[in-house]
């Protein structure tokens, strides 16, 4: 049956803890075909690949729905090794290379060619020595297939980043069995020329009969390379189109990816309370935040404005607020109402009346084991010397916690933010995600900040709580005129709550647009294309 597709997905679906992330995904892939899989962060691409690869996380969260066919046979992989066994190779976004090993050693990692010896019969095959000559020859052949020139003896840690990507792919090519290759963002770390070499190498591989699933955010190269395009949005396939026959533009794809119903939340648009006075001025900011590095970002935020920062994961959007608050090493200039803020020093940021709601709620945001009221007032107590009682004669050297004032303050917030709890003495760890987030907001409000930075305010909380949290932010802004910077992966949320939204890409600001612009404009910015402001 030569016409039978190599890979066929039928009605694949997946729920994580009652939260649907994939529904009814079906497509097929023929031999030697390249399929481009695109979608926003959270569209379900990674989950789909985890299912395809039999990652343990899938089984441990209740398995998946639907069926997978590989080479005509129904398969269900228990572990990634099962997937490798039938011939599915995966190149991950993070490198899985041994830094001190040569290219050849990495390409043949745990598949080394061994010399025959008596010892392997006596003990185990692991007692046999390595046949380095054959290993080098095999590695050289795999590298050659890719059309690049990398010495097999080169140590990986001394290679430019682009080369490492080639080594990863060469490893999959060397597996004789590999028939399907999955590449997750392979060009993200490559330069323009390296990308071109890689793309033509992939074309060659496909022509030799290997099927490829290509996941990329760079739409232009996806269009150039793939035979077929599958667009995922909110866990569903919104579009499946052949690339070659149609004239596709990056703009079309972007609108499919982000194109929710634009009018679904028209009342949410808020009144702009900005005065035009500049509140925050950021120039050439760089931040060393692992996974969210910022290279050179500049923007200004007006007083009384709600300013959104969006963009794909890993582009640096979270690095900006974390860097301004001094949580990671940073440089450049940040001025708050004309006053320069010392970077790399959280205390300096807090002293200049900025407050921060971290995306890492359980790690940075809360003292999980402590009472609600302590959580809310802790930073104010530390930074602003509030909620403290003087002890006679001791002056500044000994002061006691003012429990009455603390409880009163907390009670106020519990009421106004509708925090569901048994009382001010309940421990933060016992609350639901949404209520924990409200505690984080209360803690920030308690500082009476001039500028409030909020990261991923709705991550991991249910829909009802989302509305409440966003509503709270909006209300706080309107009541006190506080300038707010919201960082979020959810574009719709930013468009609903913000005045202007900056899209971050490649560690810099790709563009700043008014929130009223159609979503596909933001989508195009996210994909690294230019757009008129």
């Amino acid at each position, binding site marked *: 049956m030569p016409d039978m597709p190599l890979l066929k997905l039928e009605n694949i679906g997946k729920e994580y803890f009652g939260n649907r992330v994939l529904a009814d995904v079906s497509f097929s892939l023929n031999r030697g075909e390249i399929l481009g899989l695109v979608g926003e962060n959270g569209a379900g691409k990674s989950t789909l690949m985890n299912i395809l690869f039999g990652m343990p996380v899938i089984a441990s969260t209740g398995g998946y729905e639907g069926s997978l066919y590989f080479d005509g046979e129904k398969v269900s992989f228990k572990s990634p090794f099962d997937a490798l066994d039938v011939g599915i190779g995966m190149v991950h976004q993070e490198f899985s290379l*041994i*830094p001190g090993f040569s290219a050849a*050693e990495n390409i043949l990692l745990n598949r*080394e060619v061994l010399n025959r010896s008596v010892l392997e019969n006596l003990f185990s095959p*692991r007692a046999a020595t*390595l046949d380095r000559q054959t290993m080098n020859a095999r590695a050289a052949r795999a590298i050659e297939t890719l059309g690049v020139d990398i010495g097999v003896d080169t140590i990986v840690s001394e290679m430019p980043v682009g080369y490492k990507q080639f080594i990863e792919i060469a490893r999959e090519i060397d597996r004789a069995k590999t028939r399907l290759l999955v590449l997750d963002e392979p060009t993200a770390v490559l330069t323009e020329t390296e990308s071109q070499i890689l793309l033509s190498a992939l074309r060659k591989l496909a022509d030799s009969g290997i099927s490829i699933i290509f996941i990329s955010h760079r739409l232009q190269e996806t269009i150039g390379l793939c035979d077929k395009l599958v667009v995922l949005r909110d866990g569903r396939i919104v579009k499946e189109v052949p690339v070659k026959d149609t004239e596709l533009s990056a703009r079309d794809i972007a609108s499919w990816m982000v194109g929710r119903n634009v009018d679904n939340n028209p009342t949410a648009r808020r009144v702009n309370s900005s005065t035009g006075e500049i509140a925050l001025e950021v120039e050439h900011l760089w931040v*060393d935040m*692992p996974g969210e590095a910022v290279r050179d970002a500049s923007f200004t935020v007006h007083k009384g404005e709600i300013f959104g920062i969006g963009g794909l994961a890993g582009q640096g959007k979270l690095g900006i607020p974390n860097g301004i608050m001094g949580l990671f090493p940073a*440089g450049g200039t940040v001025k708050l109402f004309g006053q320069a803020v010392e970077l790399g020093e959280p205390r300096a940021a807090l002293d200049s009346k900025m407050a921060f709601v971290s995306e890492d709620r359980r790690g940075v945001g809360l003292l999980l084991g402590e009472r609600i009221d302590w959580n809310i007032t802790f930073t104010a107590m530390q930074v602003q010397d509030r909620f403290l009682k003087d002890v006679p004669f001791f002056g500044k050297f000994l002061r006691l916690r003012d429990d009455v004032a603390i409880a009163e303050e907390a009670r106020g917030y519990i009421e106004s933010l509708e925090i569901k709890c048994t009382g001010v003495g309940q421990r933060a760890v016992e609350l639901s995600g949404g209520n924990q987030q409200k505690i984080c907001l209360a803690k920030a409000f308690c500082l009476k900040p001039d500028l409030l930075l909020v990261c991923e305010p709705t991550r991991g909380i249910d829909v009802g709580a989302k509305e409440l949290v966003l509503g709270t932010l909006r209300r706080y802004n309107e009541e006190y005129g506080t300038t707010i910077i919201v960082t979020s992966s959810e574009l719709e949320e930013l468009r609903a709550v913000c005045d202007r939204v900056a899209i971050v890409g490649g560690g810099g600001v790709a563009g700043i647009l008014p929130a009223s612009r159609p979503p596909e404009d933001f989508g195009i910015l996210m994909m690294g294309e230019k757009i008129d402001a």
Partner: protein
Amino acid sequence: MSENTAAFQTRRTFAQKITALFAAHAVPIIFIVISALAIPISGFSATYLIQELLIRIGRNSFLILSLLIPIMAGMGLNFGMVLGAMAGQIGLIFVCDWAIVGVPGIVLAMIIGTPIAVVLGLLCGAVLNRAKGQEMVTGYILGFFINGLYQLVVLYFMGWFIPIADTSLVLSRGYGIRNAISLMGIRTVLDRLLPLRLGPFDIGTFHLGYIDVPVATYLVIAAFCFFVIWFRKTKLGQDMRAIGQDRAVSDSAGIPVDKTRIIAIVISTVLACYGQIIYLQNMGTLNTYNSHDQAGMFSIAALLIGGASVTRASIGNVFLGVILFHLMFIVAPMAGKNLMGQAQIGEFFRVFVSYGIIAVALVLHAWKRHNAIMNARRSLRGAPGKKEAA
């Protein structure tokens, strides 16, 4: 102009290279300098020094070599090697009791010690797998724990329900082994198996005497070195190197990480057992309750003095370390006596140096790792040209 810049940069990198070379080998260089100063002050003759060094290299090298394989597997300095030393001592106690002398006695002690060392190694490996990243401190404390079991066996069980026939080994109360056991039956038998005497060295009117070389011991050590070299080339050795550099990547490539780590510790423990037997046959006395304690600390100190680090150690480090470490032990007391009028200063120096050097090596390791992390962090931002504004 650009050529000038390039030349200037090469020159600078050359100077930097020399600085880097000194920084990388600071510990051995300091010891070479100290020894070079102390040797003339001590007034020892060359033949005496060489003879002493030859004996001590033969005595200690095997023990130190046993540390190499766990370092390769990324488990750091194996403080758990004292477990192997204890196994070897138990073997020696039985051999003494049964009065088996000569090389057969040594071989029998090894045969008895091996299964004990394997069991202790498996235990140690299993514990260390539950304490990944804290192997060294865990191994060190595990050494204390097993020392307790060792004492229970040797001090209470032997002569009670483990029969010990030779009453001269047993404490006067009727059970438990004496504090010091003479190993007369096997004393230096390996060293004297293949006798080789060099000399006499007479230069002018100076009569400098003979140098005896313990040939058989050196052959055993050479065999061990070849084993290490061969082992590095095997699949198992390759797997250990991979695990040593990145556990997660090795795991995702299908290398059985935990099992391989246990194998590394078992090999190290068994070899430490043999090493301790070789060490004690040279010393001729077994300090039942102390010998193993010193084995770990001094071996690790010697390896570090040879320029090894927590993550990298070679056969060259072993021999350079054992030479420098013992050279200092030989000359320091005499140099101390000649300088200060008391030999005690040298003894103080020995303990001070052993612990000090381990502390320094661990601090250096932490410092280098910190630097590596900082560099990795800086590289996150990518092209350096982009941050000129910083």
